[in-house]
């Protein structure tokens, strides 16, 4: 494996272990960065150690202890100046064997990063930084915010974790469902962000996180369902664009879909169903699976959207139900659902509405709706697709 790939694999593991040892994300992050820099220099020359995780953790830990000692000396000097003889706690001295088995504490870390006491945007950024190993630069680029803004957001979150003592722990059973759902929300948000732009492959990042979670919590049906959902969506990635143009689902070349990923997604979906889940991610994964099948079972899709809308109360889900209903009962039936939704700010609302209006023969209204959709489009491909539709509906 290339060194880059090894590092990406190791970063989350190593950092999580260090946070557990040192009790401070910032200190752990600095120490991990130093250890990875040393590895980048030594491993190509001396060869990769037998236990890379152990090597990285030991090296980083030693750096952190040095750092703590320096701080303490400084602290002591400052205190002496203030004529204060109080001394801080001694630095950790426990010897460490780099061949010892390193416990995987990534779950603890992800529950810290996705703690509801942190703002959602901070949870997302922190998860990508700590578990995904993305640089602040890359995260800033992915979310289209200036580097300084993202850097401050991360620093503030890390300070709050430290100062307010947000626990580094997997929540107890009575809190687990709520807190796990917060974690899954963050991962799915990262995935969806990855669909629009393609600046940084966030979809791949989210799937990577999803796999790690599924490995750590193999019996949590919603964890399995989320991974299934992401894999089933992502499997169509190659078919979704042709020469940079958006291809509607029905016109996609199915040979371009990732068969292996679809099979893996379906197997995960089955595992989640067997474990008795009826959570929102399971329903979405089941819908994603139905979309891949030909002919499409619109009645079942509409019914699942109805269940999902009952769970989430989301108008976007209602919008998707309208699409399915339009397939069963015609475009006017879909439009009457859309009329009741407050989704004016949502870019896909206008393109969905425009499409149904066009199929209902209400061309002038369709044209106006395509105009609104294009005004809100976020990628060039979307804009070109809508421009074509606009030309087709020009009265």
């Amino acid at each position: 494996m290339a060194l880059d790939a090894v590092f990406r694999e190791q970063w989350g593991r190593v950092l999580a272990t260090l946070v557990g040892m040192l009790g401070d994300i910032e200190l752990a992050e600095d120490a991990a960065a130093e250890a990875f820099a040393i590895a980048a220099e030594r491993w190509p020359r001396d060869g990769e150690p037998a236990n890379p995780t152990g090597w990285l953790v030991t090296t980083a830990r030693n750096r952190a202890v040095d750092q703590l000692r320096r701080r303490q000396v400084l602290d002591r000097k400052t205190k002496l100046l203030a004529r204060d003889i109080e001394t801080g706690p001694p630095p950790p001295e426990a010897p460490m064997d780099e061949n010892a088995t390193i416990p995987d504490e990534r779950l603890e870390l992800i529950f810290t990063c996705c703690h509801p006491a942190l703002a959602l945007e901070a949870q997302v950024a922190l998860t990508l930084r700590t578990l995904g190993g993305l640089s602040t630069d890359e995260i800033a680029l992915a979310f289209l915010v200036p580097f300084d803004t993202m850097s401050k957001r991360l620093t503030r979150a890390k300070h709050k974790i430290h100062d307010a003592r947000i626990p580094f722990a997997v929540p107890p059973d009575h809190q687990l469902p709520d807190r796990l759902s917060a974690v899954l929300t963050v991962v799915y948000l990262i995935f969806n962000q990855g669909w629009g732009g393609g600046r940084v492959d966030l979809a791949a990042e989210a799937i990577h996180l999803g796999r790690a979670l599924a490995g750590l919590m193999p019996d949590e049906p919603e964890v399995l369902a989320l991974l299934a959902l992401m894999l089933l969506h992502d499997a169509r990635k190659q078919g979704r664009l042709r020469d940079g143009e958006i291809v509607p689902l029905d016109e996609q070349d199915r040979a371009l879909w990732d068969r292996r990923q679809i099979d893996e997604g379906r197997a995960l979906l089955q595992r989640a169903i067997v474990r008795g889940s009826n959570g929102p991610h399971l329903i979405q994964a089941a819908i994603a699976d139905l979309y891949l099948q030909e002919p499409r079972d619109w009645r079942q899709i509409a019914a699942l959207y109805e269940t999902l809308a009952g769970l989430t109360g989301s108008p976007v889900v209602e919008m998707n139900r309208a699409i399915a209903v339009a397939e069963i009962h015609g475009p006017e039936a879909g439009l009457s659902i859309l009329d009741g939704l407050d989704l004016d700010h949502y870019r896909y609302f206008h393109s969905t509405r425009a499409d149904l209006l066009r199929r209902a023969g209400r061309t002038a209204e369709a044209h106006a709706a395509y105009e609104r959709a294009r005004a809100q489009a976020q990628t060039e491909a979307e804009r070109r697709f809508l421009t074509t539709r606009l030309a087709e509906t020009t009265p």
Partner: protein
Amino acid sequence: MQYALLAYSPAEEEGDRAARPISEGLAGLLDRPGVTGWARLHADESATTLRNADGRTLLTDGPFIDSKEYLAGLILIEADDLDGALLIAEQLLQETRPGTSIEVRPILSEHFRGA
């Protein structure tokens, strides 16, 4: 670890806050060992605010922040971590009037002299 819970309550519609006793439920929670101190404050009409304006002291009638909610009390607690503090805050919140908010803040340093 010590946390301060700052309770903000909506203005009283009617009745005298001072004449209303602490509810039994709230009193029970305040008696628990995790609670290291608490103070219930008079309504904000009783407040006087001093401001340091370039070394000169300005005195005004009323609370520092004029809003629909006012600082009604503060409770000092000891908890293992933020989750522990949030749990206590949530239990206290259940015993307050609707519309009350509790802000949880970690304490940087403290000194309690005791009554």
